[in-house]
Each structure stands twice: as C-alpha cells, then as structure tokens.
C-alpha cells in the first residue's frame, strides 16, 4: 500500500518519538503520547501473560479428567487469568493507551491537565504489576478474580493479601487516569471545540472516567477490609463472627459491574470513530450516541445485584435489579442501531479497522443479547455460574472490547508510529480473530445451558465435545493475536511512511503530523466546524478500493 503515502514526503524532523532519546527521557516523560506507549508495552505484556494462562485452561479442559495439572494449580491458573485480564488489561487498555494518546489531540490540547499525575498512573500500574508477578512467583492466588468471602478471608491458603494489594494499587492508577481525563475534557478544549463538537471517542472516555472515579474507590476499600479481616482474623464478612458474606458481594459488585462499562465504553467510542471514517459520514444521531454513553455510565451503577440473583438476596430485590438491568440494555442497543444506520448512504471501505468495527457490532450484539438472557430471572437461575456466563462476558469483553481496541490500534497506528501496517496481513488476522473467537466461545453458551459449571477442573464426559471445539477455536484465536504483534513491529522499520492523514479522516488528531510533535500542534487550533465533517473532507484518491 505504498500508494497511500505521498512519495516525496520525508520523515518529519522533530516529533514526540525522536524528541529526546535514552531511558530517562522515556521513564521520566510527561508527554501523554509517550506515556501511552509505555502503557502499550506493559499492557501488551500482561495481555500475553493472561493469554498464557488461558491457554493452560483450554488445554486442561480438552479432557474430562484433570490430567494436565493438579486441581489447586488449575484454581490458581483461572484466578490469575481473570485477575490479569480484568485489572491489568481490560480496564486500562483503551483509556490508558488510545485515550491517553488521543484525547488531548482530539480536543486540541497540548497535553492532559496533569501530565505528572499521568506518569504516576503508569508507575502505579507498574508497581501493581510487579507486585502481582511477585505474588505469582510465590505461588499465586486461587480465590477466583471475584475473591468471595469467606473463602478468600478464611479458607484460601494462597497469597490473597498480596494479590489484593496489587489490585488496590492498579485501582488508583485507574482513578488518576479518570480524574485526568475529566479535568482535561472540561478545561482544556481548544477554542471552538464545544461539547457538541467533541468526537464520540472523547464522550466515551468522559463517561468511562466518571465510572472510574466513582466506582473504583469502593472496590479499593473492600479489598482493604478483606485484607484486614484475613490478617487479623476479624469477622467483617465471616458469619461465624457475626459478619455477612453477602455484604462483601454487594460492595464488590457495586464496583465490578460498572467496571464492565469502563471496559466497553471506550471501545464503543473507537467504533464510532471507525464507522464514521470508513463510511465517510457523520454518525447517525450524534446526540443520542453521545448521551447514551452517559446513560450507560449512570444506569450501570444501579444494576449490580444482578450478579447475586442466587446468592441469597430476597426475591423482591431480585425483581428490582432484573427490571433495572433491562434498562441498561437500551442505550447499548441505541448505539448499535445508530452505527448501522450510519452505513446507510455512506461510502464504505473495508479497511482493516472497519472490519474490526463490523466484528465488534456483530459480536457485541450477541454478547449484549445474551445479557438479556441473564437479566431474565429464571434463565439466570439456571445458567449463572456456568459456562453460559463465561461465554457471555467473553463475547462482550473479547468480541467487544478487544476487537474495538484492535480496530483502534490499526486505525491510529499511522498517527502513533508514522508508519502504515501491511493491509493484507491485517485483514487475515482480523478474519482469524473473528472465526477463532466464535469457535472458542459459541460452544460455551451451549455448555452452560446443558449444565457445565464454571471454574471446573474436571467435568462429566458428556461435556467433552464442546470443550474440544472451544479449545480448537482458541488456538486459531491465538494466531490471530500473535500476527499483529509481528507485523506491527515489522512496520515500525519496514512499513511505508504515513502522511498526516492517510485515512482522510475527520478529527483534530489528523491535522497534525504523523507522528505528532511533542506539543501536538504547532499552533493551537481554532475549531469552526462540526464533528465528522466528512462533507468537507476530500477522500484520498488512491484510497483502498472495495474489498
């Protein structure tokens, strides 16, 4: 695709990548773009560690017997897979990488409001990560990522406190990022960049940040109480000492449900950017899409006990939470419809980011619809704590969050690196991811309904066929994830050089060079146009044609 780059263009002299070399200039940077790259490296490493544990799980589950590892080991493996993926990958991936890099650019600012706090966020992530790795080396933890009491406080003999401390610290990384985004978006928009002109990716990160600052402190204090109880043999959550294990669950899920919206909202923001650019159209119903992000954030705080329908809450409480849970499905559905409607009378190209956007919409639809199954009480009673749940959340987390992230990484890769990735390999990877993903997780819906519980190291024979299908899919999926690692790294050296706007996209980030200079813009932009003004932007003549 060398044709996308203007031949006579040479690499810009000074940009954020070559503005200072050496370890110190990176480890003590306050440039949001460099910090985004620091996150990119660390988050990717944790992703592959979590993926390694996933591989172990799927290998064990090839056979009904527990024959690959001992039960205790398996229990640690699935716990660590969950903890790493939730806290060290899914929550930070889009905000800390794409959000950090793009939010200031998109609003025309020079940096985030608090650059040093941004760096602190990354260091907190690293400290938490090192602590977690240390916990792994000391034998790991086996409570499940949900560390329910009294198992976690009384019965488990693994490194619960250390794991909890690591989650506590990474939680503060998240809180500070959210705080930074909110202040930045409120106070640092360029002249003319009104709220109604903001790209939807910014709206999405804003809503996400609201959840981050309101929800994360609650899980933080919950972890403190669990640690204190475990250390001093107190009874805050232990029934033998007057405590209530359900109180733990309420406190835990009060954060952990909104947390899933922290994960999905930024990816939804990415999809909005991709759909508009590759249809060359303003999004259908901009106001509704923007406000639906806020609605999801608000309503998301009201539904936590739908994780507790069989936990022992009253039947009337269950009905209330079931009802509210249906509410939260509406704004998500609105987004899906609006994205689809945006395609109408557009001018659609099938570049890799768009393929990921399509994949997102399809898989998120399935994942979200299965959420409705879970909101329906009698169905949830049957399928909760089974593989149906596992399939549901992987559809929205992997089919949703991860696909949105991959689409975003490919879309903004030229801006971040100044290079173009190889389109052929990228399309192949997208296809492998889509096929592998469905093969891995669709059988798990069936497995769940026919009764296979989750977190099972061994299982009855009749569940084997579906497990084998799932593992086969996982191996395809793994290839789909490894390929981008390889070709994206390759492109850094051998990829064609990108100009400032290879996609002819709307958005302030495309008005500066690729890669951008350290202070983003040579002159502060003054915005006089609406978002997604594709009627005013010339498409590239040599744009990737159909197919």
């Amino acid at each position: 695709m060398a044709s996308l780059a203007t031949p006579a263009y040479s690499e810009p002299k000074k940009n954020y990548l070559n503005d200072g070399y050496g370890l110190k200039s990176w480890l003590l940077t306050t440039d949001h773009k460099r910090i985004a790259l620091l996150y990119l490296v660390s988050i990717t490493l944790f992703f592959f560690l979590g993926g390694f544990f996933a591989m172990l799980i799927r290998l064990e589950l090839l056979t009904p017997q527990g024959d690959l590892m001992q039960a205790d080991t398996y229990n640690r493996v699935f716990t660590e897979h969950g903890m790493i993926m939730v806290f060290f990958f899914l929550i930070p991936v889009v905000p800390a990488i794409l959000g950090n890099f793009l939010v200031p650019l998109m609003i025309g600012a020079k940096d985030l409001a608090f650059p040093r706090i941004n760096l602190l966020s990354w260091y907190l992530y690293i400290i938490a990560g090192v602590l977690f790795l240390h916990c792994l080396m000391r034998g790991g933890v086996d409570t499940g990522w949900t560390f329910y009491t009294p198992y976690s406080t009384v019965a488990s003999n693994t490194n619960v406190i250390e794991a909890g401390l690591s989650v506590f610290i990474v939680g503060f990384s998240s809180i500070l990022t959210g705080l930074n985004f909110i202040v930045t978006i409120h106070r640092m928009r360029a002249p003319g960049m009104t709220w109604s002109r903001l790209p939807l990716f910014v709206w999405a990160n804003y809503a996400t940040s609201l959840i981050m600052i309101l929800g994360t402190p609650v899980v933080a204090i919950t972890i403190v109480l669990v640690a204190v109880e475990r250390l001093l043999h107190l009874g805050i959550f232990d029934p033998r000492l007057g405590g209530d294990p359900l109180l733990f669950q309420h406190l835990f899920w009060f954060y952990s449900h909104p947390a899933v919206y922290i994960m999905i909202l930024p990816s939804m923001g990415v999809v909005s950017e991709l759909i508009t650019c590759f249809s060359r159209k303003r999004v259908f119903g901009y106001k509704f899409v923007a406000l639906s992000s806020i609605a999801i954030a608000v309503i998301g705080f009201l539904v936590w006990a739908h994780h507790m329908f069989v936990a022992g809450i009253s039947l009337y409480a269950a009905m209330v939470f079931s009802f509210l849970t249906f509410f939260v499905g509406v704004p998500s559905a609105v987004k899906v419809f609006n994205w689809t409607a945006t395609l109408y009378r557009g001018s659609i190209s099938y570049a890799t980011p768009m393929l990921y956007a399509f994949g997102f919409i399809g898989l998120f639809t399935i994942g979200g619809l299965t959420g409705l199954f879970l909101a329906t009480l009698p169905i949830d009673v049957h399928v909760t704590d089974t593989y149906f749940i596992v399939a549901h959340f992987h559809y929205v987390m992997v089919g949703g969050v991860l696909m949105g992230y991959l689409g975003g990484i490919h879309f903004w890769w030229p801006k971040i690196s100044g290079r173009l990735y190889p389109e052929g390999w990228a399309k192949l990877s997208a296809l492998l991811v889509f096929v592998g993903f469905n093969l891995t997780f669709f059988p798990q819906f069936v497995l769940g309904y026919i009764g296979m519980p989750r977190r099972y190291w061994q299982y009855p024979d009749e569940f084997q066929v579906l497990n084998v299908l799932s593992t086969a899919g996982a191996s395809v999926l793994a290839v789909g994830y490894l390929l981008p690692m390889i070709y994206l790294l390759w492109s850094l050296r051998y990829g064609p050089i990108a100009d400032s706007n290879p996609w002819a996209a709307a958005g302030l980030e495309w008005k500066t060079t690729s890669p951008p200079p350290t202070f983003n813009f040579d002159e502060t932009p003054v915005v006089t146009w609406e978002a997604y003004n594709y009627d005013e932007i010339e498409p590239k003549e040599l744009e990737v044609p159909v197919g």
Partner: protein
Amino acid sequence: MSKFLPLWPDRASTMAGQVDALYIYLLLVSFAMTALIFLAIAVLAIKYRRTRGHQATQIEGSTILEIGWSVIPFGIMLTFFVWGAVLYFKERTPPADSTEVYVVAKQWMWKIEHMEGQREINELHVPTGQNIKLIMTSQDVIHSFFVPAFRIKQDVLPGRYTTAWFEATQPGRYHLFCAEYCGTSHSGMIGDIVVMEPQDYAQWMAGGPTAPLQETGKQLFSSLGCSTCHRFDIQGRGPNLTGIYNKPVLLEDGRTVIADENYVRESILSPTSKIVSGFKPIMPTFQGIVSDEQLNALVAYVKSLSQPPTGAAGLQNQPSASPTGQPQTMQVQ
C-alpha cells in the same frame, strides 16, 4: 435430545419445561435481532461500498427513529421481564405442602438429611410427583446447589439457611453440581439426584431404621437443657415454642418478625440479636456447641410443634392451636 450434542439438559422437573420455553422465546427473539443486524450491515456495506465518484450523503439523524428503536426493544424486553418475574416468583415460593429435606454443604461434599432420618452423602433420593423443599446451609464457605435437570440453583451460605424447591417428574439419575467456587475440590463436589417412582421411593426409605429428624431434635431439646426454660406446661423463663413456626413474633424493640427457619436458627446461635417482648435476655448462646446437623434437627423439632400431634413429614403445616391452648403469638403473659 441427542446425547452426542445436547442443547439442553434433561427435563426432569415441573419447572424445567417452563424455563426452557422462556429460553426458547428469548432465543428466537435474539436470533431475529441478530439476523436483522447482521443482514442490515451486510446489505448496507455492500450496497454502499465505496465507488469512484460517489459521495456519502450526510444524514443528521431522526428523533422518531431514535425513540422508536428505544421504546420498541424496551417493550420487548419488558415481556422478557414479566414472563421471567412470574416464573421466578413461582420458583422462589415453595408450596406449603412441600416435604422438607435438610442439606448441609461442606468442603467438598453434600450431606443430606431426610425428615424421616435417612442420611445421604452426595446423593438425594426423591419421589416423583412430590414437592420437595431444600433447607440448606454450609459449614464453611459458600457453595451452590445446582441441578441442571431441574433448572434450579441456590447458593448455600454459612451462618444461615437458604431454600430451594422442586417437583421431580421423571425417574432417573441427574447431576448435582456445586456451582460456587469453593476451593480445591470444587469440581469434585458433585453427586446425583435419584428420582424414583413413589413406590420405589417408599421401599428405599423403609430400608434401614433411623429416627425421624424431629425426634432427634426433641432429644437434643431435652439434653441441651432447652426444656428448662422453654416449657410447655407453665410459663417458663423462655417463650413457649408451641405453634411459633412461621408466625409473627413481637420483639423487645418493637419490631415484629416472622419465626422462619433462619429466625429459629439465629435464636439458638445468637439469642440476644432478637429478644422476644416481655422476656429477659438471659438465653445463652449455643454457637460452637451444636453442629449444623444438630441445628437442623432442633429446627425440625420446633417446626413440628406447629403440626397436629400425629404430624409426620410432608403433611400440611397447619396453623393449629397448640396442645395447651396458649396464644399463637408471643406476648407478655
């Protein structure tokens, strides 16, 4: 269903078919919605693919459509909710004539106690055509009693009772799983529900002499000294327990609570949490002195004090006049 690739478990309870019906309804709606979206994207993506010289048409939006595709899906979702809530209400309300079975979960086994005294480990024999109410507690961490074939699941907690009920319809052997992660052998904490025709069940039940649960409770009531204060003949230092089960109780602080299983259990383990109006808070705690099985027996005994004198397991819990004719609710004499 095909054993090679089953799509749903056996249907072995009265609820199973109803849950499956709701599930299939949701499946159909979801397939339709998914097909709609997939089709729309495919058609639009192809019809409006980028061709030279063709520009996109900027469309701002349509408030009518937005309202439409918010309200209509929400309306459909409400049908899910209502159907689900109605069915769920039935699922959470054990019929009054249910036979009770006590379940004690511990790492990593299920201990079952029938009212007739039969004990089982990791197996539960039940007859078809009878409502069974499970009264469950855990000795250690949270477990969950899951029978896919009945479509029931209920977390089993330490420190209190939780209940579930079913009516089995088909003889056979069905999986019992623990569905809440509980440590090393969580996946080994499995068993069978053995459903039998009533006559086979009666035969099974008759094999082996064991004391009915409430008899064991009665003996404990005496041997632990409960009868010293909780007398039936005269007003003792503690309330007369005849006929109290499932009746309202007036407490010291003015609250009124229902004397259900959890109340009786709490009164034994933590007597000063709820003090009956007009009585002194002098009852000692039996925490650590009685095991969960003994607690079950005591609870069964107290419940039996609300039944007619010939009451055996499975008969209706009638709110009857107590043998001495004393009032049903607790009040100062």
